[in-house]
C-alpha cells in the first residue's frame, strides 16, 4: 500500500510512505502514484519507510529522474555487519538490474567497504554513524559511503599481494582488495567530520568480468 505522506509544492517533491515490502504489487502501486504525480507536474518522489527495523537507524529509498536511490544510515556502535549485508541484498535484488553476477560483485564489494568501517573505524562521537547511498541507473550503480570516524583512507593501506597472503595463511585483509577488484571505480575523500568513499560499478556489456 502506498500513501502520500507529504508534498512540497515549492520543490515539487512528494514524500510517499510505503507500508509493505517492495514487490510486483507495490511496484505497480508505485507506478500508479508516479503517473498521477507526473500528471501533477511532480518530478521528484521520495518513498520513506514507516518504521526502520532491527538495528537500522534510518533507511529510505526514492525514485526520481528514472533513477533508484537507496539511503541507509547505521550507528557505528552496532558492530554486526549483517544488517548492512541484508540491506544491500534487498536493495540490489529490488533494483531491477538483471546482471546477477555484477550485482553479486557489487554486494560483496560494498559489504567489504561497510564492514571495514564497522570493524576498524574510530568514531569521533558516541552517536557517529556510517551512511551508505546507492543510486541505480539503467546500466550502472554509483554512490557514497560516509562515516563519522577519524581520518582513514583504506585505499592507502598497501595490502600484501594475494599470493603473499596465501603463503602467510592470512585470515584477514582481503576486503579492500576485493572492493578494488570488483568495483569499476573507487575514490577516497577526507571530510571535515569523517571520511567519504565514492564508488561506481557498471552492469551489462560494460561490466567488469
Amino acid at each position: 500500500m502506498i500513501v502520500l505522506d507529504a508534498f512540497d509544492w515549492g520543490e515539487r517533491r512528494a514524500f510517499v510512505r510505503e507500508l509493505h515490502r517492495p514487490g510486483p504489487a507495490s511496484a505497480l502501486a508505485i507506478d500508479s502514484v508516479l503517473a498521477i504525480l507526473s500528471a501533477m507536474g511532480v518530478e521528484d518522489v521520495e518513498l520513506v519507510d514507516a518504521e526502520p527495523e532491527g538495528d537500522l537507524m534510518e533507511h529510505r529509498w526514492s525514485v526520481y529522474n528514472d533513477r533508484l536511490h537507496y539511503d541507509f544510515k547505521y550507528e557505528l556502535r552496532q558492530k554486526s555487519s549483517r544488517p548492512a549485508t541484508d540491506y544491500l541484498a534487498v536493495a540490489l535484488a529490488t533494483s531491477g538490474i538483471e546482471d546477477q553476477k555484477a550485482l553479486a560483485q557489487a554486494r560483496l564489494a560494498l559489504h567489504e567497504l561497510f564492514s571495514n568501517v564497522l570493524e576498524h573505524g574510530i568514531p569521533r562521537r558516541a552517536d557517529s554513524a556510517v551512511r551508505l547511498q546507492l543510486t541505480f541507473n539503467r546500466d550502472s550503480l554509483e554512490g557514497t559511503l560516509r562515516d563519522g570516524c577519524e581520518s582513514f583512507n583504506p585505499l592507502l593501506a598497501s595490502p600484501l599481494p594475494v599470493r603473499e597472503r596465501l603463503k602467510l595463511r592470512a585470515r584477514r585483509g582481503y576486503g579492500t582488495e576485493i572492493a578494488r577488484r570488483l568495483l569499476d571505480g573507487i575514490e577516497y575523500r577526507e571530510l571535515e567530520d569523517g571520511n567519504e568513499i565514492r564508488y561506481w560499478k557498471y552492469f551489462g556489456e560494460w561490466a567488469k568480468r
Partner: protein
Amino acid sequence: MSINSDSSALVVHASGRRADGCLLLAARGNIDTEGAPILSEVLDQHRFAGDTRIVLDLSAVGFMSSCGVGTLVAAVADFRDVGGEIYLRGANASLQSVFEALDLTEFFAVDAVFL
C-alpha cells in the same frame, strides 16, 4: 522498504562419506564475520579427529565475505600441512566471482567427482 533478511546463521553438518573415504560436509547460510568462526571450528574438529580429506559442499551458501575467504584459505593450508585437502563443491556464481577476483581459483581444490 522493508528489510527482508536473506541471511541465516551458518550451519555445517556432515552429510556422509564417499567410497574413497572423503567426509562430505554441507554448509548452509552465510560465511561472513559471524559464520566464518563456525566453519573454522567445524573444520578444525574434523581435522583433529583425523578426517583430513573433506568435500565441502557450498551449494547452500548464499554469501561469502572476505572473512569467509580468509578462513577457508587458512583451513586449506592447515589440512595440506597434514597431507589432507578440502575439496570445494557447488560454489555459486557469486562465490566463484570472489575466488576469481582474488585469483584463488587455482589455490582451492575443486571436487572433481561432481564436475
